[in-house]
Each structure stands twice: as C-alpha cells, then as structure tokens.
C-alpha cells in the first residue's frame, strides 16, 4: 500500500531528531566556535567542511544500516512505514543509494519532488535504487 506524505514527513522528523541527538550534537562540538561572518568561501575552515560532511555521512548511514537490516528506522517504525526493494531483498547498495540525498535537507527536498508525480510515490533516488516506501501493517 502506498503511503501518505504526512506520515513520511513525520517519520523523517523523528529520525532527524534522533540523528541530531546521536550524531549532530556530539560532532558539532568540534565546530563550536561558529564562524558568524562568512563573507566568502575562504572564510569557511576546512575543519568546518569536514565535520559537516562527517555529520551528513554518518546521518546517511543511520538510515542506510537500519533500512538494510530491518527495513525500518525508528521514525518509520513509529509511523508504521517500511522500505522495500522492488527486486528481491534490499541490498546495502540500494539502501545507501535511496538515502544518499539525506546528506542534505536541500537535496532531499529536490529528491522528494517526484513523490507528487510518481504513481508509487517514489523519490527520484527511490526510483534509481528500485525501492519504495510502503505502509507496514505491523511493526
């Protein structure tokens, strides 16, 4: 069964909160001295870029590992959603590809545009990875 957009958004927000607590907060301490006047790119320290990337990559792994292992993240489990491969079972590459855009909210928004045009309500990267998000009757 295809799933409602609000349900997906709420599940994502729960996961975002989890990622914030377990990944963003511990790592953002490293760039606690936030540069407030970033007038050009050279003002952004390499450290800031590395830490931001690290947060994004580990965040993506949160979704990837859980969807590969059990088909659900905590948010999906709460809102009774699950990720499913259109082929046989979900492999790691598929899980990684379908979650790659979660490295940045802006990318995810662009990726999500296709939900409104897709019959199966797939994001672009869900189409590429041949996966879909479904309603799960059981947790």
């Amino acid at each position: 069964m295809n799933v409602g957009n609000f349900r997906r958004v709420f599940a994502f927000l729960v996961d975002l909160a989890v990622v914030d607590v377990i990944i963003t907060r511990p790592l953002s301490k490293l760039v606690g001295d936030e540069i407030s006047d970033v007038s050009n790119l050279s003002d952004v320290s390499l450290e800031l870029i590395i830490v931001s990337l690290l947060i994004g990559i580990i965040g993506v792994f949160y979704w990837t590992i859980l969807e590969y292992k059990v088909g659900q993240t905590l948010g999906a489990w709460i809102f009774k959603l699950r990720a499913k491969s259109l082929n046989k079972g979900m492999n790691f590459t598929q899980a990684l590809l379908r979650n790659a855009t979660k490295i940045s909210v802006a990318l995810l928004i662009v990726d999500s545009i296709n939900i409104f045009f897709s019959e199966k309500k797939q994001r672009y990267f869900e189409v590429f990875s041949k996966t879909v998000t479904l309603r799960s009757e059981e947790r």
Partner: protein
Amino acid sequence: MKKIRIIFTTIILLWVAAYFISLGFENKRDVISDGIAIVPIKGAILPEDSNDILSGSGMGSDTIINNLKRAENNDGIKAVVLEINSPGGTVVASREVANYVKSLSEKKPIVAWIREVGASGAYWIASSSDVIIADEMSITGSVGVISSYLEFSGLLERYGVEYERLVAGDLKDVGSPFRDLNDNERNLMNIKLKKIQDIFIKDVAENRKLDNAQINEIRHGFFYLGVEAKELGLIDEFGGREKAIAKAKELAGIKDGKVVEYKSEKSLLDLIEGFTNKAFFSMGRGIGMSLFKNEIENKFEILAA
C-alpha cells in the same frame, strides 16, 4: 521485538561512533588564526543562567566567563569584542565578569560594543575593557546601586493577617516583605548600598581614568545617552558592530581576521526544562504563591542595575 532491539542497538552504536570521532578531533578544535571573538552579554547579569518565563531571563556570570576563557585559551583569537545589550545585574556577578575582563585585557585587546543598553553592572564590565564603542543613542552609565522589594505589611493588615516576628538579633529580618523598615534600618541599608556604590565608582573611575568632576557627575547614578556619555568620557567612540570589529583588529594589529561568535546556545531540552521546572513549581504552589515566594527569596538581592 527483535526489530526494535536492532534499531536501538544501531542508534547506540552510531552515537558511540560519533562520540569517539568527536574525541579524536577534540585536540584539533578551535584551529583558527587571526580571529576576533564576539562574546555576548545579553539580558540581566546573574550568578547563574536563567530562562525563567515569569521572572525573566539573563546570563550567568559563569557562562560569560567561560566564553571569555575560550577566547583566552585559543591562541588564534587575537582580540575580543564584548557585545553588550544588558541593563546590568547583580553586584557580585557583574563584578566577577568585570574583573575577568580586566585581567584578560592585559593579554588580549578587548573592545566593548554597547548596543541598545549597557548600563550599571553591564557598564562596569564595559569600563574594564580597552575601548568602549556605542551608538549615539545607546543607554549607558547608571553607575548606581538599587535594592528593592515589595512590602506587603499594609496588605496583610487589611486582610487581618498578622506577621508573627520571632528573631534572634533585632536586625535579622530587615528587608522582610511582611513589615515596614524603621528609620534606623533604612539608614543601615542605605549605608550598605553606598559602600557598594563607592566600590563600583572607584572601579569605573580607575578603569576610565575619570577626574573628580566626572566622578561627581556619575555618582548620581543617572543613565546617559551615547552622545552624553562620550562628553563625560564614559565611552570612546560612536559606532556599531563593524566599528567594534575594526577597532579590535586595529588593536590586535591584524587585517583580515575571522569573526567567531562565542555563544552558548540553548538546546530545546534546556528550554523545555526551564518551562517544565516553572510549570511544576507553579502547579504545586500556585502562581500567586510562587510570586510571593520570589519576593521573600530575593529580599536581599542587591542589583547594580
């Protein structure tokens, strides 16, 4: 059940991984060269941070000093700008910060930038810096001390409530909201306030190198607009953030310094905690009682505000 166990195990493992990565990077923190640190001093200056919804918010002196310490310990930070927007605060908390600013100014140049208001205890802190910059219409000065509390004795009498006074030491309950001060007690309290003001003025006069005429002028405890403050020698230059940063760079002898803001952001949990603390407290005792209790607890609070 197995599924949720895997989910939580993964969450915990990722958290541990992030924690260890952050430890690994710890020694590489604060890598910055030629930086200007902006340290905010906003709201009332208190002994501890307060985000109390009913009685107002303020910054703890410990928080401000910790931010100053970060700037002090970071070799890449060449100068500090104090972003002041505060009406003052408690005497001890203000002085703690002022003393720290004074000692830090011997190591790194400090520019105090007064935005809307930098009065009383906040001005005490500003005066400890090397240069004070403010807008022509900023409110500053107010080098005085105030101690006030609501006195309920008339109200209690009207409702037939009596204050049963049991004290060992006839001045023990001076400042109690349940009875009026007599002349002697009022005089004693004024003497204490005067002593505090003398220390306050002495510090400010030393910091700003004020002469007797200037000291006599500020002794009234009145506030001054930026334009008046400059004439009185209480501030050095007019300007805003850019001017303060430029001045800090000039004092530090750097050209293209990065500006780093040292702020202690409140997490959602802190805000919720502040709210729930107050909510539970108020539910237990009633909002009226909580206000009443605050007055009793604060009876000896003396403000450099």
